[in-house]
């Protein structure tokens, strides 16, 4: 009797496990979104370029866009100001990372060029988010990276070339590979165990 009960509950568990990704449990709650609904919101860009739209831009094309839409907060030379942080900076900033006054500029600190595209696209310009075209975002990304001496003025950024841009501080983060520390609770620094 006891055995069969255990067996029965085991079968139930097995069945639950098998159906985990198969059948929904709650009828008529939520609906399938349309393709257009997903596309309208699906703006995140992965570090390998996943999600980047077609389009392209260069630093030269980015300069007038920056002057018109970004300089008012971030400064004419990208030096930052009262309204917005510094956006131009390169290897000299990377050299500050071992001091008590490190500068975390895009060129000097950010590990992925795709994050620059993603952030401009989702969050800039302030109060006018969503108004930049894909070409404008590529151009602005190119402008920032070229002024930070990471790419050249004529380099064309697009969905293929942007993920290949090597950021100077790419290897400045620990753990370098998350799979090195399988227990995600310990990926940071816990109980004195640090990556």
């Amino acid at each position, binding site marked *: 009797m006891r055995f069969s009960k255990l067996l029965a509950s085991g079968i139930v568990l097995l069945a639950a496990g098998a159906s985990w990704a198969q059948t929904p449990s709650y009828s008529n709650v939520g609906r399938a979104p349309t393709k257009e*609904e997903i596309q309208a919101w699906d703006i995140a860009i992965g570090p390998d370029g996943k999600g980047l739209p077609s389009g392209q831009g260069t630093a030269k094309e980015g300069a007038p866009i920056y002057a018109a839409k970004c300089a008012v907060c971030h400064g004419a030379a990208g030096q930052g100001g*009262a309204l917005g942080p510094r956006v131009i900076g390169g290897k000299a900033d990377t050299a500050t990372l071992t001091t*008590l006054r490190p500068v975390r500029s895009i060129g000097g600190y950010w590990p992925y060029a795709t994050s620059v595209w993603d952030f401009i696209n989702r*969050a800039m310009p302030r109060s006018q988010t969503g108004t930049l075209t894909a070409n404008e975002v590529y151009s602005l990304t190119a402008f920032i990276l070229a002024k930070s001496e990471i790419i050249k003025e004529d380099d064309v950024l697009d969905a293929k070339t942007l993920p290949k841009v090597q950021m100077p501080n790419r290897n400045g983060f620990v753990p370098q590979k998350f799979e090195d520390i399988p227990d995600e*609770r310990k990926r940071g*620094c816990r*109980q004195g165990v640090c990556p």
Partner: protein
Amino acid sequence: MHPKQPDRRRFLKNGAALAGLAVGASASARPLAAAPPPERIDELHLYGERSRFVTSVRNGSINNPERRLKGEPTVFGLRTPLQDSAGIITPSSLHFIISHGFEPKDINPQEHRLLIHGMVDRPLIFTLDELKRLPFVTRFHFVECHGNSNTGGLGGDARVAVNATPQETHGFTSCSQWTGVPLSLLLKEAGVQKSATWIVAEGADEPKHSKSIPLGKALDDALVAYAQNGEPVRPEQGFPLRLVVPGWQGINSVKWLRRIDLVDEPYMFMMETSRYPSMRLDGKSRWFEFELGPKSVITRPAGGYQLPGRGFHEITGLAWSGGGAVRRVEISTDGGRTWKDAQLHDPIASKSHTRFSSPWTWDGEETILQSRCTDDQGVVQPTMAEVAKLWNVDSVEFFRQTTQVVGDFNAIQPWKVNRDGSVQNALF
């Protein structure tokens, strides 16, 4: 809020009544007087206000360009006045706010949607009403900013100041009773594919804050909360939906949640790669730190408090851990020479603030008060020296001098009691 207005109203009403008396004889022959002007909802007691004698408020600023131009202080975020707290619930109106320089989003709940898509068998989109039809959980959880109590960055000066209060030293943690749908339930409905290993959670705020979270945590205890402390989540806290990721750095608890994307790698968003990593002196940064360690603070007597004199004072404070429930809090009233167990007050919930107290009679002499938390994983809150060791710095001066946020700072907080009864921050 407008203490003078009720008086004015009363005067007008009385005036109208007098006028009515004066024409009393012919009143019945006249059409009915116009209805009195509608009273404000606070006058009708339709939505409660606290006593006007209670003045405890958050301090700080949203800190954005528009507010800086108006002259608001350039301090980062608004902090909870923990020194005035009782029990474990932070009133929603006093919950700390960090929104990275953007104003809280004003969202019409009828128009809000939650989209779940990516590596799932069935992409789904939910209205708020639909989410409320699903099975729910109600749990106590704290939300703490990873920069809470850190000594560098914006606000670092106020935190290390001798006159710092618990609001300045620990005000970026708050605790609520959250109600919502377990994220695991929603993910099961969508049918997570085997290739998925992370989720991207995204808000509907202006910069569309996004965070990469390992799938394991999303399936473990994350919830999509629509209520906080018995009412809808407050606008500053993510109305109408907030992802609550218990015990992990607050940045994971995405406000104004509108999208969950199932993916197979972290997406390296701006905040998680450029703002939230903690920098070591060797130039390397720790990123994707998640779980917050055991921590506690005495909230009274604490910095800024004035003991009226020698005699009995119940010491009280808050303890919490991202690793689980608080198992033990010890108190020292003699500069760390001896420790004794404090009483823990119910409810003692996992990844929640826990209220503790301990009787103390002050003899009028100078001393140091400290609390030390141990969580149910057996992890003990570290001393300042132990935290310094963790950062591989030989002097606590590093923490005073660095301009960077030292994330997950959970060192024991000492409060110094002076002979005149004043209490001061004695971290350094």
